[in-house]
């Protein structure tokens, strides 16, 4: 338990590593160091999933790929730090901490801004980009696995648990949500220079497209949770309004609690049978004002997944009334209203984490007498169209630089990201270019690294790619 929990906490709470999809998903190990600024300034396989037009940002007749699957995990909360966790769940001399009223108030206050828990695992199993030339174009292929979870614990939950059902207080659960899934993308990309378009304004215009076959292996998502409870002197009243849908691959062996006859067993393999299938498209354009200034826009993950296997929904609606806890019918009804009654459904669809991206980048050389070596400054605006895992309808802006002062110094990268569910991140990264191999390390939460035990989030990314 101890080891497991340590690993869990180390994984879920502080680390963000790799989730290259959606508007808020973390970028590759190069662009993460720039505050996840990647729309106008990304290259080769790092462009896949962000802006396919940028796959063309490579030398003619070059080939780059990853041989080791890039595995990243992301997880975190926006409400509790390691120190706080340690205080409340570390015990006192091996005994449970007895919470004082102040302790309870402080713990409840941690949830003032929402009890968000997120976790992502992204595995780039295989990817390559081969660029022939700007005219002929660049071809790319990738197989990516994305497991993501966005969970919001409603403020009312810790308040109810710690302070009880205070009289005449409305306990709202409408800030609760959960979205979690596991998708596998098979994407085929193509980009090339577009001639004769904007040639008077831009020195070069490139465009790219990625066509994606999407297999979904599980999905659990809340469509709506508007349940609330109120306690008066003599009764607990409220309203239930809940709809949660789910689908699971046969190989997961999910047995729903409402199906007593179900006896499925888990049999996971490398290629589990999908519970849902869909298609997606990434579209991107990069326009080069000159060799040093570029603007990019992209629409990524246009499409949806149709979930058809082991699909179920848990739903409840209606008034809640408890005025007699000895009334088993009332208690059973409350349980059903809170958790919803489950049943099989024919199927449903969910959108992919569709996002609009805009980016701009400017490059400074030593010739500019601005700074020694070469420096690239980039700006991003990412706007998700839904709240699927890795995505957010809250806009995210980021600004990052990539600086190579002299040859023997690695690339130095830093940046800030503002907006999205994380609100603020300060990123720092290093890059080592060894001709045929490129190694990048980064964190997008430098402020957390400075004081790990006070951190709500810590991220780290490490990636390699080979290029010929």
């Amino acid at each position, binding site marked *: *338990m101890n080891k497991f929990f340590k690993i869990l906490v180390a994984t879920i709470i502080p680390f963000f590593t790799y989730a290259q999809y959606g508007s808020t998903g973390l970028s590759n190990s190069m662009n993460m160091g720039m505050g996840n600024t990647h729309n106008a300034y990304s290259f080769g396989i790092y462009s896949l999933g962000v802006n396919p037009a940028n796959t063309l940002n490579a030398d003619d007749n070059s080939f780059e790929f990853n041989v080791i699957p890039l595995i990243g995990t992301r997880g975190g909360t926006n409400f509790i730090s390691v120190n706080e966790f*340690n205080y409340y*769940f570390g*015990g006192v001399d091996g005994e*449970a901490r007895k919470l004082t009223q102040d302790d309870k108030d402080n713990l409840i206050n941690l949830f003032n801004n929402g009890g968000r828990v997120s976790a992502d695992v992204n595995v780039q199993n295989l990817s390559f980009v081969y660029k022939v030339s700007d005219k002929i174009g660049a071809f790319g292929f990738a197989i990516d696995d994305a497991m993501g979870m966005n969970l919001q614990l409603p403020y009312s939950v810790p308040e109810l648990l710690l302070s*009880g059902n205070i009289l005449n207080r409305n306990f709202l659960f409408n800030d609760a949500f959960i979205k979690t899934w596991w998708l596998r993308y098979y994407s085929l990309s193509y980009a090339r220079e577009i001639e004769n378009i904007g040639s008077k304004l831009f020195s070069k215009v490139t465009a790219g497209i990625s066509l994606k076959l999407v297999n979904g292996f599980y999905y659990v998502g809340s469509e709506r949770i508007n349940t609330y409870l109120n306690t008066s002197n003599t009764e607990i009243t409220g309203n239930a309004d809940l709809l949660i849908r789910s689908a699971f691959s046969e190989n997961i062996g999910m047995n729903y609690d409402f199906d007593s006859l179900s006896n499925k067993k888990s049999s996971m393999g490398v290629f589990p049978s999908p519970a849902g299938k869909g298609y997606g498209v990434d579209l991107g354009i990069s326009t080069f004002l000159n060799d040093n200034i570029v603007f990019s826009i992209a629409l990524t993950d246009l499409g949806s997944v149709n979930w058809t296997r082991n699909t179920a929904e848990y739903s409840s609606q209606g008034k809640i009334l408890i005025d007699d806890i000895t*009334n088993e019918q009332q208690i059973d009804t409350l349980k059903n209203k809170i958790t919803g009654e489950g049943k099989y459904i024919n199927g449903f669809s969910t959108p992919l984490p569709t996002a609009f991206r805009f980016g701009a980048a400017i490059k400074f050389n030593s010739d500019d007498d601005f700074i020694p070596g070469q420096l690239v400054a980039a700006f991003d605006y990412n706007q998700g169209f839904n709240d699927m895992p890795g995505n957010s309808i809250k806009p995210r802006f980021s600004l990052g630089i990539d600086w190579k002062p002299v040859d023997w110094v690695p690339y130095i990268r830093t940046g800030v990201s503002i907006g999205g569910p994380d609100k603020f991140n300060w990123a720092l990264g290093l890059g080592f270019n060894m001709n045929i191999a490129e190694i990048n390390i980064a964190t997008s939460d430098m402020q957390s690294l400075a004081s790990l035990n006070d951190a709500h989030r810590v991220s780290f990314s490490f990636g390699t790619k080979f290029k010929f």
Partner: protein
Amino acid sequence: MKKFLLFFLIFLLSFIYGCLNLPDDVIMPEWNVDLNIPVINKYYTLDEIIGKQNNLSVDPTTNLFIVTSDTFKQASNLLDFIKSDQEFTSLDNNMSPENGTRDAFIEFRSDNVEIDSAVFSKGYIQINVQNNSSVSVYFKAYAPGIVKDGTPLILETNLEPHKGINIYKDLNGYSYKIPPEQLALPPFFWKQFWIKSISSSTGQPVSGEKVNFDVSISDFYFSKVSGKFSETQIGRKRTSFAFAKSSEIESYKDKLFLKEANLKLKTIYNPFYNNQFSLKIDSINIMGIKGNQRIYLRDSLGSQLLNLFVQEGSNTIDFNENNSNIKDFLTFLPDSIIIDGSYKILGQNTNGTVTNIDQIEFQTLFSTKSQLAIRKTNITDTMNVNIDANQRQDIQRGKYAKLNFEVENALPFNVIVKVIMLDSLFNPLFTLTKLNGQDSIEFSSSVIDQNTGETISPSSNKFFIYLNEDEIKLFSKAYYASLSAVIETEGANQIIPPVVSIKASDWIKMKAYGLINYNVKID
């Protein structure tokens, strides 16, 4: 460079992990939380509280309960009186051995009925024949009135010289009807069985020699008798029934005052054949016994001997508080009731037919309505406290509880309740119903209309029970609850107490809610 990078990466991960001060063991904290719980909100009508009872019904018009006794029955078969285990004989009959004939008449006496016809269910005829001659004799006797399947009863035998024999015949299945030729005889012979006998010999007997025979009939019963009936005492019957003997009723003895009561005496007489005579149950005694005490049901004249004339079919006589002392009788709540009565056929040479399935049945049915007064009556009960082991552990985590009760009482009686929690060996743990230094809680009666005794409005009773941590821990060890209740209607101590109407629709509403301070500890 690669080694440097690898070293850097391992260093960085070690640094991050080392700097994280994660707990060695995750130990969930514990805390106390106030839970506001609506414990109970129940509305019960009296009908729901009492539930279905065998002897309880509700008058749909008045909504009053009607309490009825079991139906006590006493039955008597009419044919019991026309029977005989006596022996009737015709002695010293003789005739010549050679071609002799002799008619014998056996007197069949019945003071009550002149039988025209009958069917035997039992009976014996016996002839003792003595051949007092020197020749062999054939003897034959037959009864023209006693027939089975169209054939008269025949008894016959051959007798050696100077020999005798007993001939015996069971009359079961034979029927009797006076033969037409017997009706030609004087009426004296009509009430007698006619036995004809003949003899013949194989040789010439000595002159003066005789065949002698005696005829007797005994132990006869009938399955059907037709004839002319006179007034007949069928018999007297006495039957005892358990009445208000149960422990539940025991508490109310000497404390109950009824407004009204009723006794239905019902007779059922459905003879197979229509008869012209009537029946009577004479000198009926209905007596209630409680220990050494007795009470008789008396009519309005004070007589304890009641008479009932029974007509064909079903007839009912009502005794109520106006024509009898039935109210006092039922208020007495006897342990047992004895019914004693004499059954008669009232005929005056009246034609009729009685079969063995004809009977007269006499039923009593006591009833009263729920308009009454109750003096202080103690009711005790022990109830199971159904809490499983996990729930007992959970209860132990309670720190204190303050439960508020709001009771609206639309029942027309005061109730004082005391509840003592008991452990598994029935040892008292603590008194649950302690309030203001008292160990019981009183619910006052509803407001009563003085004229009708009906509830006008409910009474409102509010109180709270506070349990400290020790008491909550004791509660977790409770397996039984001893309930003592004292119930009493308003003014029940008066000599003539006012009567209240207890209706099925009377109700009690109980709401309990409160605060429980609970220690949460998640292992």
